[in-house]
């Protein structure tokens, strides 16, 4: 038998290959694997993007949207979300004088039995929310006129609405209304009187005042330059994409400022108390025995405290000084009450991991307890801790919102989403957007963190990992 025949055989010598032992697929670390699985979970991925978007909204938003959240735009109070509105420039102080018809007597000559309604009732100039000017033709024998205003149509002499003024003089033929006007239709009714009593004679006119702004105010706010500011000219008012609140403050700017408060509490409080819980639970679990018994007994007591009652109690106990915003007391109260949950969880994990072979090996090699805890045990609990942290964020945000809602949270004027809801709920019927936007932001944040937590716990679950 010679080796020359090799080629004709069914088998051939294997070539020596350097990459014989090569692993076909790249090896994945725990985190790479988890990340891959998270990426496949569409809901978790969307919520991750949402969380990132919230971060951008909170941190970069105020750089782009530079309106001061505490500045009051008194021309646009409780404004619903809308495109930028224009307004007419009006003089600072109305210089209108009530016109007097010189050809007409002031006091009627006799005592009339009937009087006519006024004629030619019309507005003089553009009606604006700063003033509505009415003029009319005097009525023979009239001794005066009573002016009424209503937001719904009157029927004859019924439902005339708000009595604005009674003019005593038949020759007074004009009236200027400057009383709390809005840009909506009004029904003005002029009732003719004999100087004492109102007669059954009424003229009604519908007037819709235009949005207007005082000249000096517009220049102050920088809406228009002093040279080009002409009375009667048009200016564009500040733009409020999310509307304004009941004090005329820009909702978008306040939502951004509120996001900082709400997310700060929502992120920092869980970070701190989860950290405390890790240390506490880690040591209790690792050392076990009496120390564990005592530490966990104490944690049980703290868990038994009625949470919201003690949140409120601690909040008063820490007190809010004048000029403080009350964020720190809330943070402290949250931390004091919530650390035991993580401590229990970490302790349970540590108790399991403690019995693993590699811990025994480390101990045999002479590793110190703190080395074993921080190097071997805690890294193995990171997955569970991360999931806890994700779920802790929405509950902290809820707590903040709840406390601010009942007036026990962040002190005004500092906005938080909860306190904005509190303000919004009072005007929810007439201006629903003041409640809607902060509530929406709370809901989206909580939803995003909840879904992200669900996704993370699935992605980090080692059982799922084994299943591939």
């Amino acid at each position, binding site marked *: 038998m010679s080796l020359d025949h090799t080629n004709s055989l069914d088998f051939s010598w294997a070539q020596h290959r350097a990459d014989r032992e090569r692993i076909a697929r790249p090896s994945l670390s725990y985190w790479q694997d988890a990340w891959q699985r998270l990426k496949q979970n569409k809901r978790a991925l969307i919520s991750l993007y949402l969380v990132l978007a919230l971060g951008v909204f909170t941190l970069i938003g105020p750089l782009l949207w530079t309106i001061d959240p505490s500045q009051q735009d008194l021309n646009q109070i409780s404004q619903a979300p809308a495109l930028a509105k224009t307004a007419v420039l009006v003089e600072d102080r109305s210089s209108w004088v009530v016109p007097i018809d010189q050809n007409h007597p002031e006091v009627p000559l006799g005592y009339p039995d009937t009087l006519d309604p006024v004629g030619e009732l019309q507005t003089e100039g553009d009606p604006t929310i700063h003033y509505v000017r009415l003029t009319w033709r005097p009525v023979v024998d009239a001794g005066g006129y009573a002016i009424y205003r209503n937001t719904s149509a009157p029927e004859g002499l019924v439902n005339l609405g708000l009595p604005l003024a009674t003019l005593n003089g038949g020759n007074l033929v004009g009236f200027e209304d400057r009383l709390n006007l809005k840009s909506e239709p009004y029904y003005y009714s002029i009732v003719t009187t004999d100087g004492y009593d109102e007669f059954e004679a009424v003229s009604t006119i519908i007037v819709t005042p235009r949005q207007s702004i005082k000249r000096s105010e517009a220049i102050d706010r920088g809406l228009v330059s002093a040279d080009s500011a002409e009375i009667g000219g048009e200016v564009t008012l500040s733009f409020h994409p999310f509307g304004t609140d009941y004090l005329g403050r820009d909702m978008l700017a306040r939502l951004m400022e509120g996001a900082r408060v709400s997310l700060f509490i929502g992120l920092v409080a869980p970070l701190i108390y989860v950290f405390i819980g890790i240390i506490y639970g880690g040591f209790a679990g690792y050392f076990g025995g009496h120390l564990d018994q005592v530490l966990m007994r104490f944690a049980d007591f703290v868990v*038994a405290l009625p*949470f919201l009652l003690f949140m*409120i109690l601690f909040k008063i106990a820490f007190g809010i000084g004048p000029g403080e915003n009350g964020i720190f007391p809330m943070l402290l109260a949250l931390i004091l009450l919530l650390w035991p949950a993580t401590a229990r969880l970490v302790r349970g994990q540590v108790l399991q991991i403690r019995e693993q072979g590699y811990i025994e090996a480390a101990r045999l090699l002479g590793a110190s307890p703190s080395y074993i805890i921080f190097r071997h045990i805690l890294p193995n609990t990171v997955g569970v801790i991360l999931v806890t942290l994700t779920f802790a964020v929405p509950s902290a945000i809820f707590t903040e*919102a709840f406390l601010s809602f009942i007036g026990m949270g962040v002190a005004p004027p500092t906005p938080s989403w909860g306190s904005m*809801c509190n303000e919004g709920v009072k005007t929810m019927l007439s201006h629903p957007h003041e409640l809607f936007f902060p509530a929406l932001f709370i*809901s*989206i944040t*909580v939803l995003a963190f909840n879904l992200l937590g669900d996704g993370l716990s699935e992605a980090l679950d080692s059982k799922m990992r084994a299943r591939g």
Partner: protein
Amino acid sequence: MGRYILERLIGGIITVWFIATATFFAMHAVPGDPLMNEKAATPEIRANLARQYGLDRPLAEQYLLFLSNMAKGDFGISFTQQNRRVNDIIKDHFPVSALLGVLAITIAAAGGVVWGAITALYRNRLPDIIIMSLVILCISVPSFVFAALGQLALVGLNQWFGVSVLPVAGWGTLAHMLMPALVLGLGTMALLTRLMRSSMLDVINEDYVRTAKAKGLSKTRIFTHHQLRNAILPVVTVLGPQVAAITTGGFVVEMIFAIPGLGRYFVQAVQQLDYTVIMGTTVFYGAFLVLMVIVVDILYGFIDPRVRLR
């Protein structure tokens, strides 16, 4: 079983003592003192008031007095409403909160079990997707928003019918209670639905279910006797802690719907810094919650005999 109950009760009493102590020292850490309001006009009046409330004694003595009064079940007299004992306040207002809570938890538990079972049976089909989306919505929207929306819905309903179908606020008849209880129970219902769904999914393919199917039992009987009964156990365990969530969550609902419950009273007392009322209600609520958890645990022992053996 008797020994178990006794142990739990002793543990509960120690917990209540801890709650009382924490309450006492938290209240004494409050800046200022309870007599800072306008009633204490002169130093003499202040001194008299301090003596009346025992505030002139050393802290340790006050603490012991507080504990012994608490043990006797005496919570003292209100600071803002003179002549009104805290016990009377609790007696007047707690039944309202309790009734609302019971109604809410009943709605939540019944709803949670039913919806959870439906989602598990129709897993990944339309009913499951719809219900689970609603559940996520209910978990994500704060309770006060639901309360506000609930009230708004009542206003709309009454306007639509032209008569007052359900009262918008207040207390008294069952009609007053329906909407507040529903709003209060909504969050818990969502939580229980989730829990019920996952525990139902665990149970649905168990061997005994297959055996029952093989024996030729009807679908409904398998559902009611084999699946539902086993799946319901985890729901019962979380009911205890959920009672706590519901009673304290009641604050907002009581405020918005103007219900004269203890929660609203507590918030009022906090705003007026009525010390004895705050301390009394906190300890009372704490004791109540501890008791509820123990009761649920013991009930659980009856439902699931395996627990008793441990």
